[in-house]
């Protein structure tokens, strides 16, 4: 049927869809396990794997020189995590203080975390080393469908002029989907305001470019409302505080927490997270043991509602406790220019002078109506997976179904449940699979854990040989000397 339609078809045993960090990390594993580039393709609409990640980090106030929130030994460019980023930066910058910090984290110091620039530079080096661009096919994936006889068809729209036809098709035994976040979701009241007034300049999401906010505040004193209590809110706050200091600004900040955390919280003494001043504190996106400790081991055994319950227990918005941020917030509170409040926002409207009024209702019944020049939504809500056409199609026609928290249900080895076809397998990793047997999916180390499970499963199916200690060590030396895999 495909041939009769005149659509060109290419055979490729392993195809990964997405071309961001998830695809990259998976290809990196498979290349190091020993799969040649001729056996794999990545279909993507971006040019290099860290492009979207860098865009989002830059918008949310982490330019290359700033540090991301990630563990030193979570290296997407180095599956062994050794030497860690801390060792590398300490060596290159001749800074013993980094070693002291990594030794004493998180007890005497904040967690040591790498600069965004360090991560991107190393990704570029590794992408070259594994010949990433030999595998890249530019295009937009429309759908992945099971084919009669096993394996899958992936329908791709190539960029204008890149191919003779409007569509091309890949026929593969294995497909991997890592298309990242299906999309951003705004807080409902802010979405309503934006749609009603067509104002995309004053009510912004922290993940979209919003430099105009900071530029405006440099020209005259203004007030900003921040919504959300996570890492992005911390980042945006830091930027506002830094600008105040650097440029002598008069910015006033009203920070609205829906859930205001005033101290340690949790059901019992063995499940208590630190918090205060509105925030819940945690070093990384998840408690550390999800990447290999007892939380990982526990979750692996849970099904259905029990799993959903466990997710709820360890979930909740949080941010790291960083000494610098604490200082800035303390100064802001005592200086009367940083006002953290608890509340839910009923609606946002224009004031008479054209500014923004938020109608905030606190749990104690008090209603506040702060007026601001800008509102920055830092809640980082994610859209439903069905917002993305590939997932929508898989849920409708591909046999896939949702997990207990509403995303894509995958096996322990990240095969999408219900989509097996003959000797083929369909895998997914990243944010879309949150709620599975492994929780930390949308993190660097989580993507590597997924990639390892996938690579080992592929080894079980005879696609590649499982990597043992000897190959691993020799491949590590190749990584260290930057020689080809």
């Amino acid at each position, binding site marked *: 049927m495909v041939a009769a339609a005149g659509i060109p078809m290419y055979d490729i045993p392993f195809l990964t869809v997405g071309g961001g960090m998830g695809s990259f990390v998976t290809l990196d594993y498979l290349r190091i396990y020993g799969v040649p580039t001729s056996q794999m393709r990545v279909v993507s609409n971006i040019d290099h794997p860290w492009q979207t990640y860098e865009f989002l980090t830059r918008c949310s106030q982490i330019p290359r020189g700033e540090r991301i929130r990630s563990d030193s030994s979570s290296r997407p460019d180095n599956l062994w995590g050794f030497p860690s980023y801390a060792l590398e930066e300490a060596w290159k910058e001749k800074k013993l203080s980094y070693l002291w910090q990594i030794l004493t984290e998180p007890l005497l110091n904040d967690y040591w975390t790498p600069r965004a620039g360090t991560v991107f530079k190393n990704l570029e080096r590794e992408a070259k080393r594994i010949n990433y661009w030999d595998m890249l096919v530019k295009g937009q994936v429309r759908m992945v469908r099971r084919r009669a006889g096993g394996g899958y068809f992936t329908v791709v729209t190539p960029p204008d002029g890149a191919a003779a036809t409007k569509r091309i098709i890949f026929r593969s035994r294995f497909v991997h989907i890592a298309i990242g976040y299906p999309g951003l979701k705004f807080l409902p009241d802010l979405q309503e305001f934006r749609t009603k007034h067509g104002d995309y300049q004053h009510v912004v999401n922290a993940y979209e470019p919003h430099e105009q906010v900071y530029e405006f505040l440099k020209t005259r004193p203004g007030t900003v409302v921040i919504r959300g209590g996570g890492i992005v809110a911390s980042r945006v706050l830091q930027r506002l505080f830094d600008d105040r200091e650097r440029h002598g600004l008069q910015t006033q900040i009203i920070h609205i927490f829906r859930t205001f955390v005033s101290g340690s919280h949790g059901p019992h003494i063995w*499940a208590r997270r630190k918090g205060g001043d509105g925030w819940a504190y945690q070093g990384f996106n998840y408690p550390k043991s999800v990447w290999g400790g*007892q939380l990982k081991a526990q979750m692996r055994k849970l099904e259905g509602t029990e799993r959903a319950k466990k997710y709820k227990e360890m979930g909740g918005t949080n941010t790291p406790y960083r000494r610098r941020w604490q200082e800035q917030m303390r100064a802001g509170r005592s200086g009367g220019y940083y006002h953290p409040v608890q509340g839910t926002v009923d609606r946002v409207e224009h004031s008479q002078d054209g500014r923004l009024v938020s109608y905030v209702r606190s749990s104690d019944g008090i209603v506040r109506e702060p007026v601001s020049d800008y509102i920055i939504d830092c809640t980082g809500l994610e859209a439903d997976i069905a917002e993305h056409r590939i997932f929508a199609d898989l849920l409708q026609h591909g046999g896939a179904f949702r997990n207990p928290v509403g995303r894509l249900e995958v096996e322990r080895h990240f095969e999408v449940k219900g989509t097996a076809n003959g000797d083929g397998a369909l895998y997914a990793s990243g944010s879309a699979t949150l709620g599975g047997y492994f929780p930390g999916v949308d993190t660097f180390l989580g993507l590597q854990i997924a990639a*390892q499970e996938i690579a080992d499963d592929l080894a079980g199916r005879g696609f590649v040989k499982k990597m043992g200690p000897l190959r691993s060590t020799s491949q590590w030396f190749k990584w260290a000397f930057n020689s080809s895999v």
Partner: protein
Amino acid sequence: MVPTLWGRIQTRLFMLATVGAIITLLIVPVLPGSSGPLSERYVNGFLVLAAVGVLGIIWELIYHFLMQFRWEKDWPTLFGLLTLVPEGLVLYFLLRSGAVDVIDPVPPAAFWTHFTVVWVCIWLVTNGPMRVPFIRWRFRGGRVL
């Protein structure tokens, strides 16, 4: 590596049997203050290593219990280094008191040099190089098997 209980115990025994054994082989002839035939000193050195392993299982149970009070259920790098103090002291006094009579009394300088060097080497290997040959180890809470 963030350990599980079974992972802790396995990692300890594996490390003592590999890194610990190699360091013991190298260091015993030059330990300060020790005397007697080399073969006896080697037997003693390896018995000390074995004692660290056996007692260590009890220690790991204690560490695992203490770890439950931490929200992250993690075990900071520094803890892994500093626990050498209580573990060393308890073993040292057990040996001095003659409670473990299969091991001859060890001169203090020899015991502490041997114990500390082995401990620090194991700690260093556990915090990095171990991940090079064993890529699944850190994702399994330290289980080797």
